[in-house]
């Protein structure tokens, strides 16, 4: 049985983590408006008032879930800078992203719904710029790899970043929305970069 009173240090961080995980599921499945603090609390096994103790409001909880989810996803899909070619780095990103999509579906469900939530709830508009920052970090580091290796040496950094952003996000959204990968879409991206690699290093 749980001891009475306010939880101590490490317990408190653990509870916060559990709330964020339960809230991610709830927001991903029911949307911001449809999400119920009560069912998040039930899933964690705490009183609804305890959630407000940690997060003050549903809005703050949503923002925290976004930060935690975006950090986790972008950290794991961002290829290490050890890759010498963009082709390899992109192959790793796609593989990692497929794995996350299959194993942690609520992460991609939550993130894919953000632009739609922000349209209905203007208070989340600033999360759209946060979202772009996360993207930029990853896509511009990939662009640099491609320019340096020669695969994208014919492009400026901004152009290379936009090319990679559109390809990866197009690949991701179509896969996410259809719940299966568009046939040949991964091969098409990798195939094109392989071709550029071979033709520029000849």
């Amino acid at each position: 049985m749980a001891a009475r009173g306010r939880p101590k240090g490490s317990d408190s961080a653990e509870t916060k983590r559990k709330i964020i995980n339960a809230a991610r599921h709830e927001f991903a499945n029911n949307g911001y408006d449809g999400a119920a603090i009560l069912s998040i609390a039930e899933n964690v096994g705490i009183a609804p008032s305890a959630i407000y103790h940690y997060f003050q409001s549903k809005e703050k909880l949503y923002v925290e879930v976004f930060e935690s989810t975006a950090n986790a996803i972008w950290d794991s899909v961002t290829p290490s800078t050890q890759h010498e070619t963009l082709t390899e780095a992109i192959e790793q990103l796609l593989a990692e992203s497929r794995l996350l999509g299959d194993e942690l579906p609520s992460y991609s469900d939550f993130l894919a719904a953000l632009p739609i939530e922000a349209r209905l709830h203007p208070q989340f508009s600033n999360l759209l710029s946060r979202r772009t920052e996360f993207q930029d970090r990853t896509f511009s580091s990939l662009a640099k790899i491609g320019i340096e290796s020669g695969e994208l040496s014919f492009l400026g950094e901004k152009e290379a970043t936009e090319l990679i952003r559109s390809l990866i996000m197009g690949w991701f959204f179509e896969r996410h929305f259809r719940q299966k990968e568009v046939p040949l879409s991964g091969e098409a991206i990798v195939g094109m970069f392989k071709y550029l690699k071979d033709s520029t290093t000849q």
Partner: protein
Amino acid sequence: MSKSRPAGRPSSENALDSRKEFINSGREHFSNYGFKGASFTSIAASANYTPTALRHHFPEKGDLYAAVFSATSNTVHPRVVQHLYSETLDDAINKVMKEMVEIENEFPTHMAFLSRAPYEFRKHPELRNRIEVRDNFHSFFFPQLIELGRSSEELPYSMDLSDETLTVFFFILLQGWIYESHYSRNVNLTLYSAISKLIKQL
């Protein structure tokens, strides 16, 4: 502003007008609140009709959604397709992207509706079965685009990427650009200069 309407069954000309008003009102509501969140009563009220009048034209919400989808694609798709008659792939992509920017400015709700549609299909698979327009458009437009590039020799057969692979490549690339421009609310043509330079490398 509320309009006063004569009592009784609408004449056929009025019926066409009211159908159009329901479609416009439906587009607005579906884009903002989603398929699930949009209410029949509010859609009718925004068009200054009773829910009964709406139900007379569209017995179920899915019927209205399908009608909005066709009406919206019928406005957007021909404006994109006309650019297949360009001389080169480079030129066609340039014109298609500029056209999309114009459509986004002229008909923001059309674009909001279309960008949200794949998300709705995922949540409500029964809607997808009613709407083949989207897949039909993609399976017509992108192969034609590749054919243009083949005949202008911008996409030489010497690179070992099949027509199918190239079709999927340009599909996810442009689709990703449309999603991201709309979601991040930042439409720009940096991607076009990247694509133009990419084509010259092939």
